[in-house]
C-alpha cells in the first residue's frame, strides 16, 4: 500500500495533521471551546472560496482568514475566551459570506458549475495531495505541535483556573489569543486533509476519549495525540482497502470509535475540567 506515492503523501500529511489536532483539541475540550473550532472550520471554507473566487491560491485565504477571525473573536470576548453568542453570530455571517463567494466562484467558472469546488473544500480530498503540498502541510502541523507543547504548562494553568493563574503572573489574555491563532492554523491545515466540515471530529473525539481514560492532564494531552494519529492511520488504511468508503468517513469513524467505547467505561473519578463548571 505504501508503494503508491499518493498513499505516502496522505500518510505524511495525515499523521502530522492528526498529531496537531490531537494536541490542540485537548485544550479545546478542556476549555469547552469546541464550538469555536466548529466556527473556525467554516471560516476555512469561506476563506478558501474567497481565495478561489479572487483567483489566488486557496491556502492564502484559508490561513489568512481563519487566523484573522480567530483573533477577532478573542477581541470581542473577555479574556480572549469567545462566548457562545459571539461565536454563533459571527459564524452564521461568515457562512453566509462563504455562500456569496461560492456563487461568485461558480459564476466565474461556469464550466464546473455544480459546486464541486465547494464540496471538495467541505469534505476534503486527502488522496489528491501532491508531494510538495504534503510536505508543506506536515511542516506547518509540526510547528503547531511544537508551539502548543511549548505553551502547554502555562496554558493548562490558565485553562483550569484563570484567576489564580493571573495572580501568579501568567499572561492569561495573551495565551488566549495565541491559542485561538493556533486553533485557526490547525483548522486551516486540517481542512486540506479531512475537509472543513469534518475537522471537528479530529479535534473533539480523541481528547474526549483521552479525558475519559485518565484524569491526569499531561497524560491525557499525550494520549489524545496518540488516539488521533492511530485513528488517522486506521482510517487511511480502511479507505485504501475498501475504495467505496471515502477517507474522510473512515478517519472520522476511527476517531469516534474510542470515544464511543470509553463512554461505557464511566468517568475516571472527578476530572480536573469539572472545576470550570
Amino acid at each position, binding site marked *: 500500500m505504501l508503494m503508491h506515492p499518493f498513499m505516502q503523501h496522505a500518510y505524511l500529511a495525515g499523521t502530522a495533521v492528526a498529531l496537531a489536532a490531537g494536541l490542540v483539541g485537548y485544550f479545546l*475540550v478542556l476549555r469547552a471551546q469546541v464550538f469555536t473550532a466548529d466556527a473556525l472550520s467554516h471560516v476555512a471554507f469561506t476563506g478558501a472560496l474567497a481565495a478561489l473566487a479572487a483567483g489566488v491560491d486557496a491556502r492564502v485565504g484559508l490561513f489568512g482568514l481563519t487566523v484573522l477571525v480567530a483573533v477577532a473573536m478573542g477581541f470581542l470576548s473577555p479574556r480572549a475566551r469567545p462566548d457562545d453568542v459571539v461565536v*454563533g*453570530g459571527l459564524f452564521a455571517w461568515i*457562512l453566509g459570506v462563504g455562500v456569496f463567494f461560492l456563487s461568485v466562484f461558480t459564476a466565474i467558472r461556469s464550466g464546473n458549475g455544480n459546486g464541486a469546488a465547494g*464540496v471538495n473544500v467541505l469534505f476534503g480530498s486527502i488522496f489528491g495531495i501532491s508531494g510538495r503540498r504534503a510536505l508543506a502541510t506536515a511542516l506547518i502541523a509540526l510547528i503547531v505541535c511544537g508551539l502548543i507543547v511549548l505553551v502547554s504548562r502555562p496554558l493548562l494553568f490558565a485553562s483550569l483556573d484563570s484567576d489564580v493563574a493571573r495572580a501568579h503572573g501568567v499572561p492569561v489574555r495573551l495565551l488566549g489569543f495565541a491559542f485561538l491563532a493556533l486553533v485557526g492554523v490547525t483548522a486551516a491545515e486540517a481542512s486540506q486533509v479531512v475537509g472543513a466540515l469534518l475537522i471537528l471530529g479530529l479535534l473533539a473525539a480523541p481528547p*474526549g476519549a483521552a479525558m475519559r481514560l485518565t484524569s491526569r492532564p499531561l497524560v491525557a494531552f499525550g494520549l489524545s495525540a496518540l488516539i488521533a494519529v492511530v485513528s488517522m492511520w486506521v482510517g487511511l488504511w480502511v479507505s485504501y482497502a475498501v475504495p467505496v468508503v471515502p477517507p474522510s468517513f473512515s478517519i472520522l*469513524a476511527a476517531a*469516534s470509535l474510542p470515544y464511543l467505547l470509553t463512554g461505557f467505561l464511566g468517568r475516571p473519578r472527578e476530572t480536573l475540567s469539572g472545576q470550570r463548571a
Partner: protein
Amino acid sequence: MGSFSWNLVLDIQEMWSLPFMLNAFRAGTAVAIVAPIVGWFMVLRRQSFAGHTLAMVGFPGAAAAAWLGLGLGAGYFAFSIAAAFVMAGRPAGSTVHSEESALVGTVQAFALAAGMLFVSLSGGFLNETTALLFGSFLGITAGQVMALVIVAVVVLVVLAFIGRPLLFASVDADVARAHGAPTGALAVGFLLVLAATAAEVGQITGALLVFALLVLPPATAQALSPRPAVSLALSVVIGLLTVWVSLFVAYYSLYPVGFWLTTVGFGIYVAARSGVAVAARVRDLHPATAPVPTC
C-alpha cells in the same frame, strides 16, 4: 427578475405577482416567527453549538434516505431526533462543559462524515449537497409552506406549555431543581423541540438559514433588553425584519438569499451591540442623567 424602481409599493406588488416569491415570503414569515422563539431559549441556555449540530445532522439523514430510496423528510426527522437523544444522553446532573463540548462536536463530525459516506454510496449528488447545506427560499411549493406552518404551530404550542419552567431552569438550574422543576426532562424536551424545528425548517431552507435565524435575532434581542417578555417579542420582530428585507434585496440582486439574510441579521446584531455599548458609555460620562437612587 424585475428591475428596481424607487417606488417600493409598486416593487412589492410586482414581486408578489410571482407565485414563487409569494411562497418565499409566506415560508419566510413562518420561519421568522418560530426560529427566533426557539432560538431565544437556545441562546439563553448557551446551546448554539447543539443548535448548529442539529441543523447539520439533517444532511446525513437526507443522504441516507436518498440512498435507501425513502422520503427525504423522514431521513431529516429521524437523524435530527436521534442526534438530540444522543446529545441529551450525557450523565444527568453533570454540568461539565468540556464533556458536552466534546460530545456535541463528535456527534456533528461523525454525522457529517456518515453523510459523505451515504453520498458516495448512492453515487453522488453534488448539486443537492450544496442545496442541502445552504438552501434557499426560492422554489418552495404551497405544500411546503403548509408543512412549515403546521410545524411552527406545534412547536409554539409545546413551548407555550413548557416555556415558564424552561425559562426558570435555563436561568438558574440549581434553584429550579430545588423548587421541584424537572430540569433533566426539560433539557431533553427542549433539545427535541430544537431538533424538530431544525429538521423541518432545514429541509426547506437549508441548514445555514435555520442556524442564522436561530442565533442572530435572539442574540440581538437579548443584548437590547434583559426582560424576558420584551426580548422574546423583539426577537420575533427582528427575525421578521431580517427575513423580509433580505428576501426583498435578494430578489433584486445577483447574490443568494443566504448571504443577504446572514448579512442583514449580523448587521442588526452589530448595530445593537454597539448602540448598547455607546449608551452605557454616555451614561458613565454624564451620571446626572442616570436615575438617582432615592434613600
